[in-house]
């Protein structure tokens, strides 16, 4: 092994170091923990920046188990940026007295999942992918149950663990069949062979997609989502809906496009069905929600449905638009959750009706939330519009206009419930709206980053151009 090759692993190595740091720091006394949050953010910011250093990226390590290229680096960087914003936004929660003693372990678990996601993305075979997936899942169940004095948090943890265990069992069953068909679990070897296994192959592929679809919360694999999102601490919910979902999406994308190129007929058809189901069910459930976290859960299910639109196009265009959409979705969702967590940390409120009259006292936050919701709904000129439009373009380029029609109609339905939140903030009268808040530096920085992301990404075509060149 060449030492140069360590550069290809820079994300993983730095993150591992960070994990070790957290482990050590967690042992120290409580006064050090106070500064741990800030230190971690700074260190992670360093990691994020380091991730962007342009170095040679094309590599295959450990006998092909680990692969790296520009695309994967980009995907990891997207996750890093999201995580950085997430860290900034969760700082307030961690600084609360009842949480501060467990800061170190929180970060420990968190970075472990992130490492798992890196591995999922950079997997060169299914073993690595599975390893990464479990690494990204099991600590998350603990995070979901992190509010150890809340019943709902405990419930969220167990629900997530049990259902994810079943889903990974199903996925593994599919992989085992795949192994039986191909005799290999290496991506490079599998992709070179044609479609094999006939019906068994279809079955195996479906099982595999179901496993990742679970993480991505596609209907009908989504049922855990709402409960876990609602039960988990708010920062964890945010992490679920953005980083965890992003990693699952990217992994699914890489595997389908890069490995199962021979099965495009199958998985694009499956994506069609999943897209329709997911958008529709997500919307129908989101309509009624009163709790913002639960609301955002169904919203993110719907958004996952939109993401599946990209998968019906097995060409590069599909990949481009998926990545682009995910990027925008991350910023939008982070912005929404950022505002929600600011409210939650201060007032412990998380119902939509609690937002009534919010604009009167907090115009800035309301506007940010408005922009973010519009972005999720796909309203120009914020970036969400571009993301959605291009996804629809990807679907339409396959001639699937009916699917596009269903999708745009669903986008209209989704606008309805996003507007309900807007309505609460701007229109509903309230004598005692939540008082004005003063933002901490971290929160401010996080929101600025999000707003920049929401507003700028759409107009800067170079970002899409970059994704396009990276995908190739």
């Amino acid at each position, binding site marked *: 092994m060449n030492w140069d090759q360590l550069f290809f692993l820079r994300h993983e190595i730095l993150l591992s170091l960070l994990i070790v740091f957290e482990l050590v720091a967690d042992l120290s006394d409580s006064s050090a923990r106070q500064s741990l949050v800030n230190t971690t953010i700074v260190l992670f910011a360093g990691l994020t920046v380091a991730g962007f250093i342009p170095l040679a990226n094309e590599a295959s390590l450990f006998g092909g188990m680990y692969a790296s290229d520009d695309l994967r680096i980009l995907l990891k960087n997207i996750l890093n940026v999201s995580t950085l914003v997430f860290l900034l936004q969760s700082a307030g929660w961690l600084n609360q007295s009842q949480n501060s003693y467990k800061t170190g372990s929180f970060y420990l678990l968190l970075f472990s999942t992130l490492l798992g996601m890196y591995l999922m993305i950079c997997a060169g075979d299914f073993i690595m992918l599975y390893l990464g997936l479990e690494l990204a899942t099991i600590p998350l169940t603990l995070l979901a149950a992190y509010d150890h004095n809340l019943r709902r948090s405990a419930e969220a943890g167990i629900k997530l663990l049990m259902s994810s265990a079943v889903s990974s069992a199903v996925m593994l069953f599919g992989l085992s069949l795949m192994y039986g068909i191909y005799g290999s679990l290496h991506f490079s070897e599998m992709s070179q062979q044609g479609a094999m296994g006939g019906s068994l192959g279809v079955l195996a592929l479906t099982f595999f997609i179901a496993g990742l679809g679970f993480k991505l919360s596609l209907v*009908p694999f989504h049922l855990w989502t709402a409960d876990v999102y609602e039960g988990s601490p708010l920062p964890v919910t945010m992490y679920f809906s953005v980083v965890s979902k992003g990693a699952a999406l990217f992994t699914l994308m890489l595997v389908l496009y890069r490995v199962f190129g021979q099965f495009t007929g199958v998985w694009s058809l499956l994506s069609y069905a999943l897209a329709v189901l997911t958008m529709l069910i997500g919307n*129908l459930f989101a309509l009624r929600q009163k709790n913002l976290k639960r609301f955002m859960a169904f919203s993110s299910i719907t958004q996952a449905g939109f993401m599946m639109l990209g998968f019906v196009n097995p060409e590069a265009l599909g990949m481009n638009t998926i990545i682009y959409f995910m990027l925008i979705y991350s910023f939008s969702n982070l912005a929404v959750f950022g505002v929600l967590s600011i409210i939650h940390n201060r007032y412990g409120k998380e119902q939509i009706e609690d937002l009534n009259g919010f604009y009167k006292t907090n115009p800035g936050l309301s506007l940010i939330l408005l922009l973010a919701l519009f972005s999720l709904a796909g309203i120009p000129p914020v970036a969400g519009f571009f993301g959605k439009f291009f996804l629809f373009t990807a679907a339409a380029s396959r001639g699937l206009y009916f699917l596009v029609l269903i999708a745009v109609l669903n986008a209209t339905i989704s606008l309805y419930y996003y507007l309900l939140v807007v309505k609460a903030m701007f229109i509903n009268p309230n004598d005692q709206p939540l008082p004005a808040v003063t933002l901490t530096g971290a929160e401010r920085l996080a929101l600025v980053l999000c707003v920049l992301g929401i507003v700028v990404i759409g107009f800067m075509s170079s970002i899409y151009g970059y994704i396009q060149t990276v995908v190739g």
Partner: protein
Amino acid sequence: MDYAYTLWILTLPVAMFLTIGLSGDRLKSNAAGILGTAGLAVIAALSWFTAFSYFGSGLPESGFQPVIAAQTTWLAFTETLVIHLGILLDPLSVMMLVVITTVSLMVHIYSLGYMHGERGYNRYYAFLSLFTFSMLGLVVATNIFQMYIFWELVGVSSYLLIGFYYEKPSAVAAAKKAFIVTRFADLGFLIGILLLSFNTGTFDFAALNDMSGSAIAQPVTTVFMGLSVSTWAMLLIFMGGAGKSAMFPLHIWLPDAMEGPTPVSALIHAATMVVAGVYLVARLFPVYHFAAPDSLEVIAWVGSFTSLFAAVIACTQLDIKRVLAFSTLSQIGYMMVALGVSGYGDEGVGYMASLFHLFTHAFFKALLFLGAGSVIHAVHSNLMTDMGGLRKYMPLTHLTFLIACLTIAGVPPLSGFFSKDEILVAAFEHNKVIFAVQWFVAGLTAFYMFRLYFNIFWNSDPHYHHTPHESPPTMTGPLLFLAAASVLAGFVPFHDFVTTDGKPLETEFHTLVAVPSVLIGLAGIALAWWMYARKNSRPESVAQTLHGLYSAAFRKFYIDELYLFITHQLIFRFISRPVAWFDRHIVDGTMNLIGNTTVSVSVAIKKMQSGELQWYIWYFTSGVLVLTLILLYLN
């Protein structure tokens, strides 16, 4: 000859309208009146000058030729269908200019006294100017679309003036009715224009009336419901005319229009605007005659029926202005009959007679209305039951009113005699039935006019609260002028000037027609004298005898009720209301239903998220299996 100065005839009234209208209350009310009147005097002078120079330039070989005094493109629809705004001078329009400006001037002067002290005096003069402008624009139109434009403007000025007393609900209702009825007729007019212009590719009167133009030379003979398309077009255009001229069954607005100030009734609803229909048919007469002779037949019968119908009603009405209004209907019916029975060229007596009657009628009817106004001014009532014996109090009014009544009754040598006689001659030569009807109507006319006259000026005194007095000179002056005009207008050699082809027409005196018509007129006067000159019970007993006819005529043959039924019951209740309901409940309901269905589906499926982990796992695995099976089936 350069007639460019005629442009002032159109621009002056606009200028006056804008000045008076925009200055609002800043202008002292007398100033508005004087400004308006002075402006109109100038316009009248210009019109007279135009008439003298046009007719006085001597008769050319080929008859009087139309002159385009000015023209500008207003709007171009296609290359050929262009709306010009221009001034067309030919015998017809020049004659109309004179009539309109003269009567209008008289009305302006009269109004100085009549409207004195009224609220909205300025507004009144502004509207009058607007009307004058529109009416003048109408008569000098070079093309049918310009005519339509001014036609509408005339309609709206009529609306504004009828509704002048806008705080009075009946005036508002009358104005609305007038506008909507004529608007409905104008729809016909518009469709007629569309048909005609589509077939001929032009709006221009010159091109339309051209003997070799496509309107006349190549009428569209495609038959639609028994009549050729050209006939339909011309009939629809006539419908517009019938609306404005209040021909049956579009007459219902005119009696109600008497809600307006009386001078307005004199100007618009007696002398000028209501004859626009006649003018329209006359303007397109060659097309009617050559391309759509059937439509002329219709016009004749409509005119004839209207004149009879209105005359019968006029015999029963108590409101003096309404009597005059029905009389106007009847007289316009005469004009229509004359046009309907007319031939072209040497046989164009009817045409000439019609316009002659228009000319004389304008004066004597304006006189009647202004006289009535003078009476109303003195008595403060419109009902003849509140009047009587006024000859003692208002000698000038009495005298002029008597002259007018004699004129309209066709007593020679007053002008009405000449013009009505020509009409009867034309009818006699064309159709004996129509002639008989018109002859009978002549008698009725004399009867109801003198019924009016005797009831106002003779009969017994109904104990006035204030002693009535003669009107001021600003009012009696115009009365005297118009009386003179009524007397003298018959001697104008009309047949030399206004004929179908611009060439003089030889007319002869038909004793066979003239004598009976004078006789029946005198008989009518005598009957009226017998019944109304003194207070007695004869009118009641006659009414008792003819009970059914009397009450039907008194209620205007229930036409208003019929219209009310059609509009309120049928259109409002059975179309508009269902439409509104349909929109709220079906169309909108569907949209709401979509929304509500979505929500109820959302509620219905919420059990899926039961909160029970094992169900989730069950959905997950069965979902995987079902999807696999579907995929396998599809592959």
